[in-house]
């Protein structure tokens, strides 16, 4: 990271983009969601890579069977510029919840996200979003001894 402290305008613009990103994907609005990326943008998650606008349009539909009852809640947003102020890295996590009648509300996943962005024509676009889903973490034995 070499380009100094993130500006207010860029922090707000990128945070707003992250909000839009989740509304669109959670509502299965594929075309505008894919348009948040550069034409050669990539979404990496669940062991798959979706490169380019056509493939990106497939992503929102993956959760369509849940009928809009899966929601991502982003938090802990930390944004830094990259090598120049026209590149940025946003780190955040998204708590994934489901709200189906059966079995009721559930914590479904924790998505750790590294989003790379670039400014094109004055607007921020996503070059890549690499999502690491937290799963299979073994509970450390030491935790049993923690006095809380």
């Amino acid at each position: 990271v070499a380009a100094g402290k993130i500006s207010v305008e860029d922090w707000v613009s990128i945070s707003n983009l992250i909000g839009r990103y989740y509304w669109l994907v959670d509502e299965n609005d594929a075309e505008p969601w894919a348009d948040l990326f550069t034409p050669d943008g990539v979404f990496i998650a669940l062991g798959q890579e979706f490169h380019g606008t056509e493939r990106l349009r497939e992503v929102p539909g993956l959760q369509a069977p849940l009928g809009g009852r899966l929601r991502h809640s982003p938090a802990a947003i930390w944004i830094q510029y990259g090598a120049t102020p026209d590149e940025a890295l946003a780190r955040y996590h998204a708590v994934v919840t489901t709200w189906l009648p059966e079995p009721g509300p559930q914590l479904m996943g924790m998505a750790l996200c590294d989003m790379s962005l670039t400014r094109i024509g004055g607007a921020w676009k996503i070059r890549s979003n690499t999502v690491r889903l937290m799963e299979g973490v073994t509970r450390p034995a030491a935790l049993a001894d923690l006095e809380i």
Partner: protein
Amino acid sequence: MAPAGDIATEDWVEIANLIGQYQWLVDEGDPAWADLFTEDGAFLSQAGQGWRGHAALKEAALSTKTYFAGAMRHSPSAIHIDYDGSRDEATARYYSLVSTWFAEPGPEFFNMALCTARLARVGGDWKFRSNTMQGLHHAL
């Protein structure tokens, strides 16, 4: 002490970003977390117990790796920031919803931490002077 006016947009954003960085670093067990505090900064329970100074704070960050292996995450929300006596001091209050994501027993709510962070502007950057937690489930 008289308040120093409404928080400036620049300061609100910088502190909110700092809180995001703070949660990332502690959840990853990264000792760089300590550098977000002033030299005499402290991470405290309501009873005033906890870790004071960079050396102790580094240990606190590393201990999250030992106890939680990166499977504990803090989700901050309801961030509310006011200046204190001057525009170089501020108090940020926020909730931190703490969840754990172990394979067994699966995802769980671990705690709701009510956080009161006292901050100071040092060399143009905001730093934590202290962060005091009130846990609604686990005391800290």
